């Protein structure tokens, strides 16, 4: 049993509530958003907390998601730390703004709490927005950094990490969550309060910002994505591509669960699917099957190198995601043909149970068992 102080630090909160509380504590300057299930508690919690009376953080309910993302775009131009949050159809509406923010290399954090699609779909949890977040629906050569929390605590941590990465790389960061992580309650320790940056600090960190700070002693800043000279546009794209390469080299992050030298099979899963798969791995390990899990913590950049290295020695990979198969393409590319990749998952608001994953794993393994495997390897 832990001591009393530690227990008192723990709070029991929903993932969505934690997004709002962590933003205030990490010194975010503003939030612009429009309510949508299953993430409405973000705006609700901000309304209850009234951070404009304490830290001075702006909270604004926009008239639509299109307005929200353009407010984020505008505030990003001034070097402020701002975020929006929405769910699948709302994030779809934001794609144009995200492309513009990437084109201008602006900071901004977008929280996406996924539900079942396409279209309005259902309000139940889903992970069918992998392609939307990782490959984007906006135009042009761009990428956003995509973080994938799998617990309520990580929802808080990701708000801090996103704040840091979005300024470090001058690119929007998407936190891709899902309706389960958003709606469930778990123990969480909230971060300590960090004051919002002063104007002088913003000027030092963002010399490109169009905020008028120090204008008398410098030329004016201008931000635009429009360029009539294609050569200039190509140069700009190439510079951005160089930046994206560096992000891929430096920021890919993942976690291994029960992977060791003897691992025969690998499960790859993120977000809620990784939690379900953890239990599936435990059940399979109890039955003597050597399986482990790799959980991407960043979806872009994708931890391709780690998957490539593991595929050298494993027999096959099961990609678990609550969609009809989106991340599986990145997993396949990462294996460079060294391992066969299978998919399991449900969609439209349904979520696999650990037993579903175990069953899918067994049919996959039956298909990949070679003649060298002992008879009766499968207990059931």
């Amino acid at each position: 049993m832990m001591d009393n102080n530690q227990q008192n630090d723990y709070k029991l909160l929903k993932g969505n509530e934690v997004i709002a509380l962590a933003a205030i504590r990490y010194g975010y300057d503003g939030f612009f958003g429009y309510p949508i299930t299953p993430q409405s508690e973000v705006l609700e919690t901000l309304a209850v907390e009234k951070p404009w009376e304490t830290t001075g953080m702006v909270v604004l309910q926009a008239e639509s998601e299109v307005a929200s993302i353009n407010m984020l775009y505008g505030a990003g131009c001034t070097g402020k730390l701002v975020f929006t949050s929405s769910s699948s159809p709302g994030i779809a509406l934001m794609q144009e703004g995200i492309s513009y923010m990437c084109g201008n290399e602006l900071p901004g954090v977008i929280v996406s709490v996924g539900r079942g699609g396409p279209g309005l779909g259902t309000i139940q949890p889903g992970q069918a927005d992998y392609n939307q977040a990782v490959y984007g629906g906006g135009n042009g050569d761009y990428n956003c950094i995509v973080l994938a929390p799998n617990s309520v605590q990580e929802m808080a941590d990701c708000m801090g990490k996103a704040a840091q990465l979005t300024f470090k790389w001058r690119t929007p960061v998407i936190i891709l969550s899902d309706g389960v992580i958003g709606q469930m309650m778990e123990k969480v320790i909230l971060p300590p309060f960090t004051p919002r940056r002063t104007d002088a600090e913003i000027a030092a960190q963002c010399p490109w910002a169009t905020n008028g700070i120090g204008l008398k002693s410098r030329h004016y800043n201008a931000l635009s994505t429009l360029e009539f000279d294609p050569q200039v546009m190509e140069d700009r794209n190439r510079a951005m591509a160089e930046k994206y390469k560096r992000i891929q080299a430096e920021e890919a992050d993942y976690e291994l669960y029960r992977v060791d030298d003897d691992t025969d099979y690998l499960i790859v899963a993120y977000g809620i699917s990784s939690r379900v798969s953890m239990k599936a791995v435990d059940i399979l390990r109890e039955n003597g099957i050597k399986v482990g899990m790799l959980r991407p913590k960043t979806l872009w950049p994708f931890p391709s190198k780690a998957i490539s290295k593991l595929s050298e020695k494993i027999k096959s990979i099961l990609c678990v995601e609550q969609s009809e198969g989106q991340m599986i393409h990145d997993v396949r590319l990462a294996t460079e043909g060294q391992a066969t990749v299978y998919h399991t998952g449900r969609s439209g608001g349904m979520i696999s149970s650990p037993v579903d994953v175990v069953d899918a794993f067994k049919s996959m393994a039956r298909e990949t068992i070679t003649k060298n495997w002992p008879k009766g390897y499968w207990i059931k």
Partner: protein
Amino acid sequence: MTEEIIISGFGGQGVLSMGKILAYAGIMEGKQVSWMPAYGPEQRGGTANVTVIISDDVVSSPIVSQYDTAIVLNQPSLEKFEPCIKPGGVIIYDGHSIIQPPKRDDIAAYRIDAMEEAARTGNSKVFNMLVLGGYLKVCPVASVEDVVRGLHKALPERHHKLIPMNEEAIRRGMEIIKKMN
């Protein structure tokens, strides 16, 4: 120890808050917890359920298809979740709300007449705390003291005056629960 519990009933019966108080009590015991509601167009009179997991270890999946204990507070919930209880598990039901009692003989069935008790004392709002008391008697995952400490954390200060009444209901629930098989 890992205890996977489903609490299910009508919206307005206090299903979600009972789960939350139970989860808080688990935290007070130094355990790992998760609380996953069926969210959506739930409303007073509709159906509501929540999965609570209390464990010594990290909770892996907050979503499970089989439960150690089901607390069912209306007939549709009993029909939906009785088949999902692990063999050797527990079902707890309210005597007034359930017309067809559970049939399985490989699980332990407990009846608590919480609705009746709440009506008798003229305080229908402590219904869920009576049921929680009954559950804690059968499955002592947390002590009453931890639940009370959990209530202090879960409730806003202006409601703290109601805690003694809730504690009394929990203790009463422990007395009135009956084993049926």
